[in-house]
């Protein structure tokens, strides 16, 4: 499991810039960023080197941010790796709430959330994949 920082943001010009600027001032190194949006607002999800300090910096600046444990798995950097991983879940009937990827030291990492993290871990390990821990 790794810690993900999430920030609720209104869909308004300048909001993302303000949030990222706070993280820049706090010298936070970002590894991944993903935004899900609706017409009025979105959730910005961030993987970074120091999630606790990043959250504190945001809260100090008056921006509400939360930390949650999410699953992450390292994949081979080869065609079909993502398909194979997701098919493990599909076969077991485990659905995904969201998913995004990033490269960590040239290795692809897939971040995702399911209803049942323990079951996800078992499925991945039985498929020979390694859950990522920070």
């Amino acid at each position, binding site marked *: 499991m790794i810690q993900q920082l999430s920030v609720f943001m209104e869909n308004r010009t300048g909001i993302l810039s303000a949030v990222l600027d706070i993280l820049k001032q706090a010298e936070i190194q970002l590894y991944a960023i993903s935004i899900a949006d609706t017409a009025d607002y979105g959730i910005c999800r961030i993987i970074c080197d120091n999630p606790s300090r990043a959250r504190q910096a945001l809260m100090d600046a008056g921006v509400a941010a939360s930390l949650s444990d999410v699953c992450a798995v390292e994949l081979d950097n080869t065609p079909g790796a993502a398909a194979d991983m997701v098919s493990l879940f599909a076969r077991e009937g485990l659905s995904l709430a969201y998913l995004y990827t990033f490269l960590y030291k040239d290795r692809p990492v897939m971040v995702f*959330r399911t209803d049942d993290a323990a079951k996800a871990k078992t499925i991945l390990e039985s498929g020979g994949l390694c859950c990522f821990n920070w």
Partner: protein
Amino acid sequence: MIWNPSKECMPEEQKRELQGKRLHKVVDYVYHNVLFYRTKMQELGLEPGDIRTIDDIVKLPFTTKQDLRDNYPFGLQAAPQSEIIRIHASTGTTGNPTIVGYTRKDIDIWSECMSRCLTAYGVRRSDIFSVAYGYGLFTGGLGVHYGVENLGATVVPASTGGTQKHAKLLKDLGITGLACTPSYALHLAEVVEKSGIGKDELKLRVGAFGAEPWTESMRQEIESRLGLKGYNIYGLSEIMGPCVSYECECQHGSHINEDHFYPEIIDPQTLRPIPAGEDGELVFTTLTKTGMPVLRYRTRDLCSLLPGDCPCGRTFVRMSSIKGRTDDMLIIRGINVFPSQVESVLLGIPECAPYYRLIVDRVNNLDTLTVQVEARAEYLSRDMDTLSPIAALEKKVAARLRDVLSISSAVQIKMPGSLERFEGKAKIVTDNRKLI
């Protein structure tokens, strides 16, 4: 045609004499039956015998919406419960609605006054008249309904909603008259047009519109799209309901049913009378009601009483259109909404911060209410990695607001600190309808 010329065209002197007699009677009645009025009169050193002519009315205390709320539910009712045959209610600002009980005599007077309105609009026994005000606690539906029956025309109790079916009935039944809010009339026009019904297939000729502010340009649009002539109707549940005043064919102000509802215009600050023709707050005294009479009720509506005679022959004084309010009440789809009602709902939801805005607009001829509210930072800083808690919060706020306001609204959750803070008087409401 005039429904009741003996009253509607009464010579001035005779009218004032009748008003004076009725005022004395109602004052005597409430003094002996309503503790609230007796106490207020005694505080001013007044007894019923001090009120003899209509000019004595200025001696009497005012009644406010707050008084009605403080005496919820039956504190101002003068008649015993066994005499009350109906209850109506209007929305309250902080949960308590205003309850009005009607005796059989009140309902008869209401129907009489409503028949005067309808006759002035040109409605006759041969008409088929559709009432598309809401039926229920709101006075619009049943109030107009009883008037149409009293007049002897055919009433179609369409109520609101079911607009598609209503459009079909307009054509199939050959409906000739319509009563509803002006915004609903425009919505109905749109549904008629979308259903492929041509204006020439409709037999509509008369419309009675009110319960919300409307403009001359809205009148023209309704008239041209539905092919009818639109008349204003004014009323409020605290006094009776629709029927308090009505336009005649001259359409220069609305005649007040003065033998039953006595109007005054006062300065809302000094509470002194204002001369005819000048704008001020409209105040009504019910002269004949027995269920819940009210003395000098401050409507909070701003308008003027028009001087001079009306060419139609009626001697009942005319009031101008309503030019605004002395409080922050909004009328949305015919329903009274106070910003404080919204505030009380939001304060009861722990996820919400006490910063909010109301945005009122008119989209496709229907009023819309959008409520923006900031979420609390503590709420947004736990397990907020998907949007579903936000969607759930929006639903929860919308459902609570619906319960209290009786109308639906769109809710937008805002980031903490994103709504502007005001040091002086906060500008909470933005009304984009441009009605005046």
